[in-house]
């Protein structure tokens, strides 16, 4: 009877956990008790062994560890593309294309306003329109740059939060691990605790791809698949020896001030600030170290932001030795970045790289726009002899109370540093649109008013600027072959006439608008791919989850059937007892009157 009762208890446990996450249904392993062989010398006379009943030898859970493995692998992949999809979706809404308010519309408006100006250069209306349209274009570039930068910062915050989550999950897994081992030592199965541990592992696997290996007494070791060459990469150790690793968040990477070159590697030095376990709430967690890295390596660190640390939250090298000696300059092979090949952590890295690319492309658009418009506007290819640059670097440009440039030399020198973040229309032009140069011979003069050769209705130069909309420029070379205005006409392979009005095409280039369209195109393809991957992974994962539910899930119908089965058995047992009771009654009360 107590066997049946136990079985009913288990059924009841199953039913109450029918909707619990990660729960695997359990069943009682019922076996017969050791049979009772009559200890008689004349055993041959007996009927044989007499059964002594049943007992519950174990309570086991239904679980297929292979499906667990598959689910975890797919969860990691899904985690990666989920992240990418969300973030790229945000990039799409930042670019806001196709729309009437996006950058491409503003670019068209910009060039059209120059056409209008070309027809009526004597009208202050059309001059003001050009100044304002250009300002709108520059503002939109600034704003998109800022939003993209903010998106990147958000991704970094997400990385930080993920690291906190991961460390807390690891801690919980570790605790459960020890509890399970304690239960196993006493010969029992810690089914519910193991379910909980598996659930945590499933959650962990969406952050990065993990390796789980079983050890004695139902313990497990957990390590990432990608170990960056760390000697003992376990993050959860079945045997607690203090070698388990944690992750920490790099909050900042800055060049050392004043900039220093590490004599050993010849690379510039950077100060890295990181928070142990990603926990920025405690000042004590703040750690710094100095490394020598190339610019590309620094960029990788900036986009990755996660490092291996030991159980105390101190950065370690591949042998597990702490790298925290103040005054020591470490190299990048000692600093171990956590670079999983899958999962949300990977997704955030990829997204930051993508966003960086989009920022670079916006910067290229801004640079080429500034270089080409300024060149034709002034007719000179050297910013230093340009008396009235059209686009300026707002970080440097200063104006006096009347809106006149007060540091023209610095402005000219800073033109090469124009990016989407700081491109702006010269305020002097906005305050006084008559400064816009539209005439044929303007290239000979510093300012518009110096030119006495051409009439006020001469809009040849404005037409030339409007023509930039169709000029092919090798924009992809910005940053490599094109760094200053004059590069467009040397390494950039465009040509320019002596009066700076006719700009020849570079046959292998694109128009400015075309380049931006390519960017949008690329974004569309990437985002579409991420969406497709998420859909695929969803389907795949749901199939695995169905398989898992098929094995481990609680079916109420089945439990009901079991319940009735056990109930009947219980009743039958009770019947046996009452029958024996009545038999005894016959013997005890019936025989002796």
């Amino acid at each position: 009877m107590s066997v049946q009762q136990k079985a009913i208890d288990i059924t009841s446990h199953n039913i109450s956990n029918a909707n619990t996450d990660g729960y695997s249904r359990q069943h009682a392993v019922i076996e017969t008790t050791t049979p009772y062989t009559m200890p008689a010398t004349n055993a041959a006379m007996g009927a044989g062994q007499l059964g002594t009943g049943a007992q519950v030898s174990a309570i086991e859970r239904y679980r297929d560890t292979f499906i667990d493995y598959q689910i975890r692998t797919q969860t990691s992949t899904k985690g990666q593309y989920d992240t990418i999809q969300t973030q790229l979706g945000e990039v799409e809404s930042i670019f806001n294309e196709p729309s009437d308010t996006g950058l491409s519309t503003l670019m068209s408006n910009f060039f059209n306003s120059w056409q209008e100006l070309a027809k009526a250069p004597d009208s202050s209306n059309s001059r003001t329109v050009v100044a304002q349209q250009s300002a709108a274009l520059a503002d939109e570039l600034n704003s998109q740059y800022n939003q993209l930068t903010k998106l990147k910062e958000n991704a970094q915050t997400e990385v930080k939060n993920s690291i906190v989550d991961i460390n807390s999950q690891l801690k919980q897994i570790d605790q459960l691990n020890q509890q399970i081992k304690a239960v196993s030592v006493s010969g029992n199965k810690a089914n519910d605790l193991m379910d909980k541990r598996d659930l945590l592992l499933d959650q962990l696997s969406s952050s990065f791809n993990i390796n789980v290996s079983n050890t004695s007494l139902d313990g497990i070791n957990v390590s990432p698949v990608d170990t960056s060459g760390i000697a003992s990469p376990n993050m959860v150790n079945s045997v607690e020896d203090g070698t388990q690793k944690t992750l920490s968040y790099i909050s900042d990477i800055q060049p050392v001030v004043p900039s220093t070159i590490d004599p050993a590697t010849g690379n510039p030095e950077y100060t890295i600030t990181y928070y142990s376990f990603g926990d920025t709430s405690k000042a004590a967690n703040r750690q710094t170290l100095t490394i020598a890295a190339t610019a590309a390596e620094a960029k990788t660190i900036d986009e990755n932001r996660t490092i291996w640390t030991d159980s105390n939250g101190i950065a370690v090298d591949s042998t597990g030795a702490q790298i925290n000696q103040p005054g020591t300059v470490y190299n990048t092979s000692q600093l171990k970045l956590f670079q999983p090949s899958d999962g949300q952590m990977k997704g955030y890295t990829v997204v930051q790289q993508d966003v960086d690319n989009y920022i670079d492309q916006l910067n290229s658009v801004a640079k080429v726009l500034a270089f080409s418009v300024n060149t034709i506007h002034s007719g000179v290819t050297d910013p230093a002899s340009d008396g009235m640059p059209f686009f300026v670097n707002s970080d440097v440009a200063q104006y006096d109370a009347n809106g006149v440039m007060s540091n023209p030399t610095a402005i000219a020198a800073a033109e090469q540093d124009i990016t989407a973040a700081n491109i702006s229309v010269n305020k002097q032009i906005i305050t006084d649109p008559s400064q816009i140069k539209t005439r044929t011979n303007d290239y000979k003069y510093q300012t518009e008013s110096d030119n006495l050769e051409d009439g006020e209705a001469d809009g040849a130069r404005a037409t030339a600027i409007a023509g930039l909309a169709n000029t092919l420029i090798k924009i992809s070379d910005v940053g490599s072959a094109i760094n200053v205005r004059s590069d467009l006409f040397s390494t950039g392979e465009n040509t320019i006439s002596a009066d700076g009005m006719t700009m020849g095409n570079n046959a292998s280039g694109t128009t400015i608008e075309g380049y931006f369209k390519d960017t949008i195109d690329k974004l569309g393809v990437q985002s579409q791919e991420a969406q497709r991957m998420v859909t695929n992974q969803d389907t795949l994962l749901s199939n695995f989850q169905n398989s898992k539910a098929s094995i481990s899930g609680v079916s109420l119908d089945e439990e009901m059937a079991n319940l009735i089965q056990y109930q009947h058995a219980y009743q039958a047992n009770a019947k046996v007892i009452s029958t024996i009771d009545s038999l005894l009654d016959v013997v005890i009360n019936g025989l002796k009157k």
Partner: protein
Amino acid sequence: MRVTNQMLSNNFMRDVNTNLENMSKLQTQMTTGKEIQKPSDDPYKVSRVLQINSDISSNVQYSQNIKDTTNWLDTTDTALGQVGDVLTRVNELLVSSGDAAYGTDEKQAIKNEINQKIGELSQIMNTNYDGKYVFGGTRATTKPVSTQTDATTGNTVLSFNARDGHVIDNSSSPTIAQDANEYSMIKANLSVEISQGVSIDYSVSADEINKFSTSSGGTVSLIDVAGSSTKGLLNRITDDLDSNNTSSLTGQDLSDIKDAITNVLKLRSEVGAKSNRMSDAQSKNEDENNNMTAMLSQTEDIDITQKTMEYANMQTVYTASLQTSSKVLQKTLLDYL
């Protein structure tokens, strides 16, 4: 395969969600009328749309340029017609001055009328359109010509007008250096882009009316050239009338004025040809615009019928999934125990 209750409800939730996602996408497409909302919907289409949009935008700008230029050319044509009328009247007057019966009084009357005509000519050459002097070249906000009264003869003298109102020294080496600049501004042509890479010079300058080549091969101008011993045609005529030089009036002067009329006619026919070209360009521009708008519509607009059908389909599937699931999910063995 063993099926559990949670599997049923999970699958149901997932499928219903997919249905709703599809319906929401269809809904957005129906309400916006556009096939694509963001680049990832269809990267290829989005880049087409962006391209076509910017093409249309620049085409609209070109169309605006063409319209403005056409109006300008119309004004120029009218003005040139009036110049022709004035010169024709001068021509008639010259012919009548040859009449042997005309005495000094008549000559005086003819001269007076010619002086008036010179004033009229100056007025016409200062025709203003949209705040610009059509014959003023790039110096569009200052009158290209003005008239003075000769102190000795009392005749009206036509001359090029400088910004500050003095008479432009139109010799090859003027005393005031700026005069040469202003004179070349008046001579300069205005040009406009009417389609990608196609520019057209659309203005006629006062100097083109002024200078013309004669049938005998020389170049004569209506306005005096500073420092030159020969006077401009108009001044020559009034001087000849003063000195009663009939042979010159009915000879050289008459033949020159005829050449001047021919010159104006030539300019008019040029303007007419440009005007024609503009209307051709306009209709080409409109065609292109129509084509591109049609292309844009084909690329990004939805087919309402198709989408409605898809939506009806979707709705059926959605309803079916809700109905079936509400029945399947409700039943358990418990109902019968």
